């Protein structure tokens, strides 16, 4: 037991995490490209036209993976921030900080593609229904987290303040997810559910899942690159960084 804890915490030190992250990045990039090409190919050429929405529905292959990612990245970010707050592990807080911009990007992508999809299908760029509004709040949470961290000079205090904001914001995630169930919304219910078969043609589903995987791999690769930069910046006065950059 004692042994395993020691092993685990080894990567909580920036010095050993930095090279590990560096070795993983190319693999995640490669996977992102492979899944992305396969996903786009299915999305554009294999998946059939939709009976109701025609070709316009194909924006789903970006919209849904981006929305999933925005919610999932927030949970992961809050997890790392909370871990850093509770255990004072240094890399945890850096991971949270590294994930925020990608989360904000995904939330923006979800809102923009949703808007582009909403105009032709619903007849409106935007409505203040529960799903759209809570996703907008998610974007503001990401931006707020980044702004709060940037506003405090002392990194340890910045991490603490950011962690509290991130943890409070977790409340919003189930609201986004269940909004279409709990309230009357213009946004339709979920196509993919845990307790029943997805209500979409098989090839469409494959395209969406491959695109989601591509978004995952991209997000991990970018977050790892960003965390390496953060590690270097924060540890710039240590001996190992001086050696690493020689």
């Amino acid at each position, binding site marked *: 037991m004692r042994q395993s804890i020691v092993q685990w915490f080894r990567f909580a030190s920036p010095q050993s995490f930095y090279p590990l992250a560096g070795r993983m990045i190319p693999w995640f990039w490669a996977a992102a490209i492979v899944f992305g090409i396969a996903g786009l190919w299915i999305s554009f050429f294999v998946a*059939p*036209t*939709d*009976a*109701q*929405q025609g070709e316009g*529905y194909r924006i*789903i292959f970006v919209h849904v993976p981006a929305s999933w990612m925005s919610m999932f990245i927030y949970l992961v970010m809050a997890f790392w921030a*909370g871990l850093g*707050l*509770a*255990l*004072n592990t240094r890399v945890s807080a850096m991971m949270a900080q590294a994930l925020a911009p990608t989360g904000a990007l995904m939330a923006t992508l979800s809102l923009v593609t949703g808007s582009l999809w909403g105009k*032709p*299908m*619903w*007849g*409106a760029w935007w*409505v*203040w*229904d*529960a799903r759209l509004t809570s996703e907008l709040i998610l974007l503001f949470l990401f931006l707020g987290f980044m702004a709060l961290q940037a506003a405090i000079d002392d990194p340890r205090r910045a991490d603490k303040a950011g962690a509290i904001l991130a*943890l*409070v914001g*977790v*409340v919003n995630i189930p*609201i986004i997810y269940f909004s279409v169930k*709990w*309230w*009357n*919304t*213009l946004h*339709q*219910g*979920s*196509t993919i559910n845990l307790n029943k078969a997805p*209500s*979409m*043609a098989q090839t*469409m589903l494959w395209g969406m899942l491959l695109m989601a995987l591509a978004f995952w791999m991209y997000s991990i690769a970018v977050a790892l690159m960003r965390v390496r930069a953060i590690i270097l910046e924060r540890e710039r006065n240590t001996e190992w960084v001086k050696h690493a950059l020689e």
Partner: protein
Amino acid sequence: MKPRQKRIALIVGGLASLAVAAGLALNALDSNIALYVTPTEVVAGKIPQDKAFRIGGLVKEGSIKRDNMTVYFVITDTAKEIPVSYTGILPDLFRDGKGAVVQGRLEGNGVFAATEVLAKHDENYMPPEAQHAIDQAQKTPAPVVTQ
């Protein structure tokens, strides 16, 4: 307790109380969060007075009538119906028997004068052939089994 355990307990306790607070707030806001009311709620009088509001439901099949630029149709939740008039461009997915959300005011004559009509589509995605097969299956009555 060690300081670390204390911090974890504080975080968990804080999150739990926050969840309860958020749940209560959302519960209290329930009717304000809903984007629209149903025709049944309109008939029951649960509508904001002298204010524009939205009604959501299905466009009653065969109820769409056009008169120049003005469209008349009936919005229903299969229990109650509200006649609607609208002048303007309808979204592509506005169709007979499909979902729609209309924004406007209830006039004195009981007709809802809409200023905006939105189409609400469902969460099912399928190729046209599959849709056609489903439509056919619904039209044909189930075969009677004779012994």
